[in-house]
């Protein structure tokens, strides 16, 4: 029995044998004859056609309101209109009591700012209720000239001491900084600034005929680097106006109450406006522009090579003017079907390409698109085209222009590194 068990163990050990057949190669004597050869080439004609399209996202649909004042470059201002208020409080089924507004508090979120800015002033203006998505910069110049409501020095607030007593934290939810005018500043978890400004009945005029709707605009000024981005309703961080009022209850006793309203419209206007599309490729701006690049994959890359790196190279027509601290992202997405301006875009982020554009410099764009180009080379059923857009769109006055295929000396190219097909089969 013992012998049999020994045999059994022997057989099982044999059956369970695993291989270790890989050894260091000492070339060329003890290596196969083939070579893994890397080739690095700029394909100047792989991008065979390109088109720029405009009108994708308007400023009213943007995720932020860009506010900047860069003399000689751009003047951009936020505009928003708050939702209507009920004029009465319902006490019973048909019994109502009119509200009497005594003040309001406006909350705005500053999502981006230049931390190098000094003496950054945010100025609040009362705007006409007629502002909408068709409002131009020129149309709001008068109210931005004579209807200032409030102003706050953000740097001064930031340098104020933190108030962290229990009562304050209970009321505001966090430590705050405040100034003599009653402005309150909180710093969000993502370093955004949340600014509260109290408005009296002259600053926040509650007009019953307008159902309590009010409209405001924001502009900035600073010693330098005056650019900020305000949150909008589209990303859930838009302005909010809290009305404080009182009313008589059923016993004719005055009661205090408040109600918060969000924006029904928020946008920004800027000057100079985005120029119309020309023969170059445009990305960004308002309304948002995109550029479609159509690629022709050479037979070499489909049959005889494996792409290991692919870089899109595009030459800008010139620097994008704006605040030096500003930048924006260009996002390249695969086109599922080439339908021109309405081409559906892939949502597979594995194939996205991104590039950060800094303002006032005209650096050549180099965007890594390795996974996307590899997918085109491996799968001939895919549409070899990509769409360049700003991310997020309509969140900035900035638009970049690149030379297109119609400018042979500066046309878009693909810089591709590939490995030639290995010569299997030969000793």
């Amino acid at each position, binding site marked *: 029995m013992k012998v049999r068990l020994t045999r059994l163990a022997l057989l099982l050990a044999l059956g369970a044998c695993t291989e*270790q057949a890989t050894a260091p190669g000492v070339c060329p004597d*003890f290596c*196969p*004859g083939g070579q*893994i050869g890397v080739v690095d080439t700029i394909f100047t004609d792989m991008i065979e056609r390109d088109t720029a399209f405009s009108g994708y996202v308007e400023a009213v649909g943007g995720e932020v309101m860009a506010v900047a004042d860069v003399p000689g470059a751009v003047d951009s201002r936020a505009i928003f209109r708050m939702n209507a208020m009920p004029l009465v409080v319902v006490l019973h089924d048909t019994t109502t009591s009119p509200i009497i507004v005594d003040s309001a508090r406006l909350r705005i979120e500053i999502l981006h700012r230049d931390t190098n800015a000094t003496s950054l002033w945010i100025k609040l203006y009362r705007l006409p209720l007629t502002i909408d998505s068709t409002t131009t910069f020129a149309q709001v110049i008068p109210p931005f000239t004579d209807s200032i409501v409030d102003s706050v020095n953000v740097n001064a607030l930031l340098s104020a001491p933190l108030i962290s007593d229990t009562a304050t934290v209970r009321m505001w939810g966090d430590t705050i900084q405040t100034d003599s005018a009653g402005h309150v500043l909180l710093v969000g978890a993502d370093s955004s600034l949340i600014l509260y400004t109290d408005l009296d009945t002259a600053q926040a005029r509650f007009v019953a005929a307008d159902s309590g709707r009010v409209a405001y605009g924001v502009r900035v000024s600073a010693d330098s680097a005056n650019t900020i981005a305000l949150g909008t309703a589209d990303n859930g961080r838009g302005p909010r106006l809290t009305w404080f009022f009182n009313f008589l209850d059923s016993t004719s006793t005055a009661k205090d109450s408040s109600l918060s309203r969000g924006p029904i419209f928020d946008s920004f206007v800027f000057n100079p406006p985005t120029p119309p599309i020309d023969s170059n490729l445009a990305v960004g701006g308002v309304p948002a522009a995109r550029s479609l690049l159509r690629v022709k994959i050479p037979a070499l890359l489909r049959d005889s090579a494996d792409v*290991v*790196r692919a870089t899109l190279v595009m030459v800008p027509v010139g620097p994008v003017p704006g605040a030096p601290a500003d930048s924006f992202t260009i996002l390249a997405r695969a086109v599922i079907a080439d339908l021109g301006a309405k081409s559906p875009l892939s949502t597979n982020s594995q194939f996205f390409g991104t590039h950060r554009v800094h303002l006032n410099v005209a650096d050549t764009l180099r965007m890594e698109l390795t996974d996307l180009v590899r997918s085109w080379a491996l799968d001939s059923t895919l549409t070899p085209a990509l769409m360049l857009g700003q991310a997020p769109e309509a969140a900035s006055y900035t638009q970049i222009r690149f030379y297109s295929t119609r400018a042979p000396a500066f046309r878009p190219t693909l810089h591709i590194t590939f*490995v030639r097909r290995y010569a*299997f*089969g030969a000793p």
Partner: protein
Amino acid sequence: MRRLFLLLLIAGLALAAPVLAQDSQFGIRGLGTPGRGESVRARTTGGAFAAFDPFSPLLDASVADVRRVTAGVTTGTSWRTVAFGTQSASLRVSRFPAFVLAGPISSKFVVMAGFSTYLDKSFGITTRDTIDIRGTPQAVRDEVTSDGGVSDLRIGLAARLHPRFAVGVALHGLTGSTRVTALRHFADSTTYRTSIARDEVAFHGLGGSASALLDLGADLRLAAWVRSDTHLRADIRGRTVSDDDLPFAFGGAVRWRPGTEAAVAAAVTWRSWSGGGLNAHDTFNWSLGTELGSPTSPVRFGVRGGQLAFGPGGKAPTEFGLSAGIGKQFSGGRGRLDFGIERLERKGTGLTERVWSFLLGLTVRP
């Protein structure tokens, strides 16, 4: 219990069957590593008994004395150390190099069929380098692997024409494939993707062999064989990528039985591998072995030496080996198990290999 043991044995052999591996680094730059065509019984005698062993797929005439349908399989596992100057590596592989099925069709003729490893083409190598891409040095690691080989499918006929003389002929179909992969990994894997190339190479060839056994007395037997193979064509997706000459080969052997429990044999072979492309050499090999003890449980010893078919430089690498083993009949002689161990040392320009092999063979006569 015995039947269970047999079932387990067959299962073990089946598990080992799919794995084929390169016997030597010397074959990487050539057509591969030629198989031995020896059963465990022959292998443990250094190969000297291969010409007289019907279950070694070497000599067709040796099956002339098989009087009942019988099958024999061989398998083994090797532990190999390769040393390139200061570098070394340890490798472990399993093989299933031979299967022979034979049975009489008349009182004079015996047919045989089976397969054996003709060329083993399994290997894996890794190399490291730094290359310049886009003006920046990039560290890379390459892996080239090949898994598979060329099998020798044999169908033949043997006849004992005279009580002292037997002949055999066989047709050999050479066929097989390798799954090959070439990978390049970049150290900067966020910028550069790993390049992977895979393919399957199919091999085809033909050959023929003839052999004879002559008894000069009751104790002395001579064997001679000759074999000619044509070309080995390698195809990838229907396109021929190489066509290499295969060798003409011949050999002879002698066996002497000084008693009922002792036998000694010696063999020599010559193969013209030098037409097989770069790094190919003609080879001469010799072997000497003995089988002692009862035929039901013999003990075997052997020594072998000679040249390898492929290796860098103008001179063929050399090989020297020692082997030993035992056999055990069971079920009244209807089956036999053979165990063996072999130590090989191969030397060539820039490389020394040392191999330990454990061998297991099974012969069954239903």
